[in-house]
């Protein structure tokens, strides 16, 4: 279906679940040009912002800090977080991430085949990394994993709102504890900005929540889908295992081909934009599809072919424009270490159930499989 839409040209109109018509952008240059345009707003508190699924109409999903803000407030918040997510900072976490990933593989070997790669590998990696980074006790991981999943995959607005309220209560206590006794963690450092008046207590709570939402479901969904793509192409999996293709190269193709959320951007238009003979009017909604933009044949030769040697960062899986993923350096590092370690330590990696039995997640806007039973 996607292919049919994109064959109509890079700028189209589609109808959403609620009957609303929005612009759908499937071209790389067009998508990037629009995402860099300051006549686009990410502010979800306006009715003009397209609601991509029923549960995202919940008030908590409509007032997200950072991702749902426009400049100048967006830039203020981003600037305070940038130092935490620089390449240098991400790379300093490499030994920790390697220890985490190897520990999980040890656990999988102990469990023995078949083991569920979602539960025992993909989910705990970002959860452990984010706990360490933010200063959240990992003992609480079941709670915050369930709460972020409840927000992202709520079956209706009420369940998303309830999950968000529960997570806010938890994080409120965490931030208060940090205000009383400063810890060596990201939240502890954010609290220092409360002292200087640059952030309020509530802003720290909200920022922490957004970091958890953005950091957990994305990476934990990406890993199983990437494993499936590799299992589908055994010769490429072998090349990765043999080190013929470095993991750092392979993950860019995994990111390009399996963008876990299809939305490189959902925006609304604040002032008329003319682009390639189309008039995008003020108040219109706009969706940029990463799945299709990443397969623009004007950028990638044979774009539907999976090829881990491509190593191209010309994809919009992390978005584009001022909202491009803050945590992308950390995400890349986790994926690199996860895939490199997995194929090296479990060289016989294979599905433990027929592929037809894998169930795609049906809820929310983040694609993944519910379970991924493997043997090795």
């Amino acid at each position: 279906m996607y292919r049919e839409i994109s064959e109509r040209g890079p700028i189209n109109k589609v109808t959403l679940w609620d009957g609303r018509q929005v612009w759908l952008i499937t071209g790389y240059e067009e998508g990037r040009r629009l995402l860099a345009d300051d006549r686009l707003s990410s502010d979800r508190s306006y009715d003009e912002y397209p609601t991509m699924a029923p549960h995202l109409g919940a008030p908590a999903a409509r007032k997200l800090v950072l991702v749902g803000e426009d400049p100048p407030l967006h830039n203020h918040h981003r600037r305070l977080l940038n130092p935490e997510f620089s390449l240098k900072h991400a790379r300093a976490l490499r030994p920790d991430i390697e220890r985490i990933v190897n520990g999980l593989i040890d656990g999988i070997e102990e469990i023995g085949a078949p083991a569920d790669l979602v539960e025992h590998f993909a989910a705990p990696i970002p959860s452990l990394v984010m706990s360490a980074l933010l200063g959240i006790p990992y003992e609480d991981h079941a709670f915050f994993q369930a709460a972020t999943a409840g927000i992202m995959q709520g079956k209706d607005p009420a369940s998303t709102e309830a999950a968000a309220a529960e997570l806010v209560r938890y994080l409120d206590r965490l931030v208060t504890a940090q205000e009383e006794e400063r810890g060596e963690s990201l939240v502890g450092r954010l609290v220092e900005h409360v002292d200087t008046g640059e952030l309020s207590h509530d802003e720290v709570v909200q920022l922490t929540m957004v970091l958890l939402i953005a950091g957990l479901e994305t990476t934990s969904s990406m890993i199983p889908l990437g494993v499936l793509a590799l299992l589908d192409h055994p010769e490429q999996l072998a090349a990765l295992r043999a080190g013929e293709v470095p993991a750092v190269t392979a993950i860019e193709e995994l990111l390009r081909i399996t963008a876990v959320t299809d939305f490189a951007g959902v925006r609304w238009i604040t002032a008329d934009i003319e682009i390639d003979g189309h008039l995008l009017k003020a108040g219109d909604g706009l969706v940029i599809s990463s799945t299709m933009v990443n397969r623009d044949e004007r950028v990638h030769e044979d774009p539907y072919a999976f090829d881990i040697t491509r190593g191209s960062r010309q994809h919009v899986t992390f978005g584009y424009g001022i909202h491009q993923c803050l945590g992308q350096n950390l995400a890349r590092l986790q994926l690199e270490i996860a895939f490199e370690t997995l194929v090296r330590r479990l060289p016989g990696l294979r599905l433990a159930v027929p592929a037809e039995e894998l169930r795609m997640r049906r809820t929310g806007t983040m694609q993944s499989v519910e379970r991924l039973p493997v043997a090795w």
Partner: protein
Amino acid sequence: MLITADRDRCIGAGLCVLTAPDVFEHDDDGLVHVLEQEPDARLEGDVRLAQQLCPARALALETASPQST
């Protein structure tokens, strides 16, 4: 080739640092710092790709005029 980076536009995505690590780095603010304002010609491809990938369009490249090369 002369590189200028607009730190007011920079959002610290780090693609320039990944793409042309001899030319760009992140400073303590997590923003771009240009290490080599006039990099060696063999780095030009990487620098152009870094400019193209920059999500904030914060990098400007000035190509030296033929007389000065």
